[in-house]
C-alpha cells in the first residue's frame, strides 16, 4: 500500500506579535519560529500508524522553500519512507485551490492508494487543499476525519461534526482524507531516526504555474474592540482585584 502525506511548514504565531510586512500582503516572518502545521502532525501520525498496520510505504510531500525540508526530515525521522519538496518559487499570493493544483500536478502519473492531509492550516485557516486536491485528481474525499479505518479496497472514516456528532462514512480507495486534531497521539522522533533521516535524499520538484481564481488584496491587524475592564499593576495587585471581583460574583 502506498500512502502520501501533504505537510506544511507554518510560522508559530500563537504567542507572537504578528506584524504585516511592507507588501501589505504577508506577515513579517524573520523573528518567528516555524513548525509543522498542527493538523498535519496528526495526519502524519495517522499515516505512520497505517504503515505499521498495513506495511505501507509513506511518502511525504511539501510545497515550500528550502527550510520546509525540516518538516520532511522530521517526518522521515518518525518513520516515513521518502519525501519530496515542490519549490514554492512563483507561488506567492496564490490561493489554496491553486496550491492544490500544484500538488495535483505532482501526484499525476504517480499511484497512491491513500493521500492524507491536515484538515486545516493554522496560518491561512482555509481547510481547502485536501478536498480540492481530491477533486482535481478525480478521487473521493472526506474532510475533518478523526478516525480512519483502512479495509480491503475502502476506508471507513468518522468525520467530526459540530455539537458532539460524528459522520460515519465509507470511501472507495484510492481517496483523500483530511485529518482533524485529537484523533491520535503524534509520536516524537527518536535520536536514531533523526540521524537516519539526515542522510536521506529529498526529491526536488518544480511547481507548475499556479492558477488562482481569487486574488489577495491585503492583510491587516483587526482593531480589537475590547470593552473589557483591564486590571493593571503588579501581579499581586491584579490578583487582589480579581479576588475581590470573584467575591462579588459569588465565587468566594
Amino acid at each position, binding site marked *: 500500500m502506498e500512502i502520501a502525506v501533504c505537510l506544511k511548514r507554518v510560522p508559530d*504565531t*500563537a504567542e507572537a506579535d*504578528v506584524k*504585516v510586512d511592507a507588501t501589505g500582503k504577508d*506577515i513579517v516572518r524573520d523573528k518567528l519560529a516555524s513548525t509543522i502545521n498542527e493538523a498535519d502532525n496528526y495526519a502524519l501520525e495517522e499515516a505512520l500508524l497505517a504503515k505499521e498496520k498495513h506495511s505501507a510505504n509513506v511518502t511525504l510531500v511539501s510545497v515550500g522553500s528550502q527550510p520546509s525540508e525540516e518538516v520532511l526530515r522530521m517526518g522521515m525521522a518518525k518513520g516515513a519512507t521518502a519525501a519530496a519538496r515542490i519549490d514554492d518559487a512563483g507561488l506567492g499570493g496564490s*490561493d*489554496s*485551490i491553486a496550491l*492544490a493544483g500544484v500538488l495535483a500536478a505532482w501526484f499525476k502519473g504517480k499511484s497512491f492508494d491513500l493521500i492524507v492531509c491536515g*484538515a486545516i492550516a493554522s496560518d*491561512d485557516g*482555509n*481547510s481547502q487543499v485536501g*478536498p*480540492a486536491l481530491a*477533486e*482535481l485528481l478525480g478521487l*473521493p*474525499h*472526506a474532510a*475533518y476525519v478523526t478516525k480512519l479505518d483502512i479495509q480491503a479496497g475502502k476506508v471507513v472514516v468518522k468525520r467530526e*461534526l459540530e*455539537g*458532539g*456528532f*460524528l*459522520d*460515519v*462514512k*465509507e470511501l472507495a480507495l484510492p481517496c483523500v482524507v483530511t485529518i482533524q*486534531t*485529537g484523533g491520535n*497521539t503524534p509520536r516524537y522522533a527518536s535520536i536514531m531516526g533523526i540521524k537516519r533521516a539526515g542522510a536521506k535524499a529529498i526529491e526536488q520538484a518544480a511547481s507548475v504555474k499556479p492558477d488562482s*481564481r*481569487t*486574488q*489577495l*488584496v*491585503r*492583510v491587516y*491587524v*483587526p482593531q*480589537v*474592540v*475590547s*470593552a*473589557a*475592564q*483591564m*486590571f493593571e499593576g503588579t*501581579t499581586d495587585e491584579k*490578583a487582589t482585584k*480579581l*479576588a475581590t471581583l*470573584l*467575591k462579588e*460574583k*459569588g*465565587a*468566594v
Partner: protein
Amino acid sequence: MSSILVLVEHRQGAIRDVTFEMLTAARKLAAPAGGKVEAVLFGDGCDAMLPGLQSQADRVVYAAGPAFKDFNYESYQKALVKLVAERKPSAVLIANSAFGTDLGPSLAVALNAGLVSDAVAFTKADSGFSVSRGMYAGKLVADWSVGSEPAVIMVRQSNFKPEPASLSGEVVRWEAGDVVSGGKTKFLSLEEVPTTGIDITKATIVVGIGRGIKEAKNMPLVQEFAKEIGAVLAASRPVVDAGWLPKEVQVGSSGKTIKPKLYIALGISGAFQHIAGMKGADTIIAVNKDPKAPIFSVAHYGIVDDLHKVIPVLRTKIKELAS
C-alpha cells in the same frame, strides 16, 4: 447581479442556525444590487422546512429524494453543479461547517469557480466580490477579491446575526437528476460522541483552560483553583486533543456551548471556534499574557499576565477573603 444561492444546511430534521445567518447576509448583499436570494434545500421529506425558508428568501429551490436523506458531499455537489449551470447565480453561499467544508472546495473546483472560505464579511465589487476572512487564528484579517462569477463563499458560523424577514418566496420543486450514480462514498451513520457524565452546560461557574497551561504537570494548579471557587473545569480544544481533559468538557463549535454565570479563561487565545461556545456567559474574565489575544474582545474583565504566576497569588488572596 443575478441571484445568490444559499445552501440550506440541516441535520436530523432541523435547519441549522447558520442557514438563517447566511440568508440574512445574502439579502443584504443582494438587495442594493437588485439581486434575488434563492434558498436551496436538498432533502428527503423536508417539506416542513419550507415555510421557514419562504419568509427568508425570494425563492426556495427544493430537490427532494432519497439521495438527499443524509448529507453526502458527492450528491450535493452533482446537484449544485447542475443547478448552477441552469440558474447562473452570482454567488453560492455554503456554511463553513463540517458539512460545508466537505463540499465547498471540491464544488469550487468542479465549477472552476473562485472560493473564499471562512468568510466574515463580503460585498459586491465592480466585477465579482470582495471577501474578508480571518488568518492566524484571528490575529489578522485578509481581504480577497473573487473576480469571476459565480463566487463560492463559505460563511463562518455564528458570525452574522440572523434577522427576521417577511418575504414569501415561491417554492420551486426541482429535479436534481441521477445524483447518486458513480458514487464513491457512502453515508453509514450519525454517531454521538460518548460521554462519561460531566455536564459543563449545567455549571454556574466554569474555569476554561487553554494551551497556555503548557504541560500536564500544571493541571493540579488549575484543578485545585477550580475546586476552591466551586467551578467546573473546562478547556479549549488543544487541551482535550492532548488528552489532559475529556472531550465532553471542550468548549466551542466542536464541543459544548455553555452559558454560565461566570467563565474564567486561562491561557486561551480566543479563536472564533472557542468563542462560539462561551460568548453567552454572563461574565467573562480572561487571563492571558498576550495583550492582543482575541479573547479580550469578548471578555468583561482582563488581566495581561502569566497565569502560572497569577493563579497561585489569586488562590492566597481568595483564602484571605474567605476567612
